[in-house]
C-alpha cells in the first residue's frame, strides 16, 4: 500500500516557528510521502520559507509541493522555489517526480494551476488582452500538467495542484468565486494524464471529496477543510494495474 499524507494552505509566517512540527510528529510512521498543495506561506517571502524549511526538517519522508497564489504575493516565486529545493523539497511546476517507495513507484506531477471556471460556466480566450492572458495562462499550466502526468513511469500517479480541477470540492464556497478557485482544464489534464488521485488546496470553505468526469478521486486538502494536521490516503498499486 502506498500511503500519502497531504495538506494545503498551511500559510506559514514568522509567527509559525515551532507550531507545525509537533503536528507532523508521527507523519513518517503514517505515510510514505508528504504532499503540500500550495499556499505554503502568507506572502511568499524568503523569511517565511525559511520557517517552513525548519518545520519540515527531518520530517522523515520525501516532500513534494506546488506553490499557491499566496506564495507569489511577494513576486519572488523563483526564490521561494530555490529555497525549498535547496532544502530537498521537490517543487513541481509543469513537471513531475517519481519516488521509489517500499510499496511501489509513486509518480507525482504538479502545477499551481489557475482559474477560469468549470464546464458550462468558464472563461474563454476572447475579448480584452487581460482576459485572453488569464485564460491562456490557465490552458498552458493545464497542458503542462497533462504532459507531466503522461510522462510518469510509476505504479501510482497523483496530480498535485493548488487550484481545483473540479467544482465538487468547492461546495461550500460562494458560486460567484468558482472561476477564481479552479478550472475544468485541470480536470481534463488529470483525466488525460492517467492520474489515480488529484490533490489540491486553495478553497478553504470547500469540501474534501470529489471526482473528475473521468472518475479520478479528487481531494481538497486545504487545512480548514480537512481540519486535521494532514489527510492520509492509501492506494494499492496491484489494484490499479491493468488486467
Amino acid at each position, binding site marked *: 500500500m502506498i*500511503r500519502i499524507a497531504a495538506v494545503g494552505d498551511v500559510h*506559514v509566517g514568522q*509567527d*509559525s516557528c515551532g507550531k507545525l512540527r509537533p503536528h507532523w510528529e508521527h507523519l513518517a510512521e503514517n505515510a510514505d510521502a508528504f504532499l503540500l498543495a500550495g499556499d505554503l506561506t502568507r506572502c511568499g517571502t524568503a523569511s517565511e520559507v525559511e520557517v517552513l524549511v525548519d518545520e519540515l526538517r527531518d520530517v522523515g519522508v520525501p516532500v513534494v509541493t506546488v506553490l499557491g497564489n499566496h506564495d507569489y504575493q511577494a513576486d519572488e516565486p523563483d526564490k521561494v522555489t530555490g529555497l525549498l529545493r535547496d532544502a530537498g523539497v521537490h517543487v513541481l511546476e509543469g513537471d513531475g517526480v517519481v519516488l521509489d517507495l517500499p510499496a511501489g513507484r509513486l509518480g507525482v506531477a504538479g502545477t499551481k494551476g489557475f482559474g477560469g471556471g468549470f464546464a458550462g460556466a468558464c472563461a474563454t480566450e476572447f475579448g480584452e488582452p487581460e482576459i485572453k492572458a488569464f485564460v491562456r495562462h490557465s490552458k498552458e499550466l493545464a497542458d503542462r500538467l497533462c504532459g507531466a502526468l503522461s510522462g510518469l513511469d510509476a505504479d501510482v500517479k497523483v496530480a498535485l495542484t493548488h487550484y481545483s480541477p473540479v467544482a465538487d470540492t468547492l461546495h461550500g464556497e460562494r458560486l460567484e468565486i468558482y472561476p477564481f478557485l479552479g478550472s475544468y482544464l485541470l480536470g481534463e489534464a488529470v483525466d488525460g494524464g492517467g492520474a489515480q*488521485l488529484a490533490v489540491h488546496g486553495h478553497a478553504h470553505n470547500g469540501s474534501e471529496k470529489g471526482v473528475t468526469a473521468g472518475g479520478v478521486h479528487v481531494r481538497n486538502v486545504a487545512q480548514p477543510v480537512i481540519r*486535521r494536521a494532514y*489527510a492520509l*490516503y492509501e*492506494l494499492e498499486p496491484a489494484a490499479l494495474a491493468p488486467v
Partner: protein
Amino acid sequence: MEPVDQPEYVATHLKQLLAEDPETSEQGIEVLLVNGQLFLRGAVATEERRDAVAEFVARHAPGLRVHNDLVTYDWPEPTEAESLT
C-alpha cells in the same frame, strides 16, 4: 447614507484590504456588516493572526463593533487513512 457607506461596500472594502494589505495578507476571511456591527468569520493559522486581524479591522472601521468569530488551525494528526482502491 452616502453610497460608499452602504454596508455591502464597507464589508467588501474591508475584505479586500485584509487580503491586499501586507500587514494581514488574509484572503479567506468573510466580513459581514449587520446593523453597524462587523462579524469576522473564517480560519487563520495562529492566535496571533486572529488577534491581529481583529485589531486591523477595528482600526480601519472606527466606530463599528467587531465580533471576532475566526478560528485557528490547531488540528491533530489523523487517526486513520482513506483507502482509494
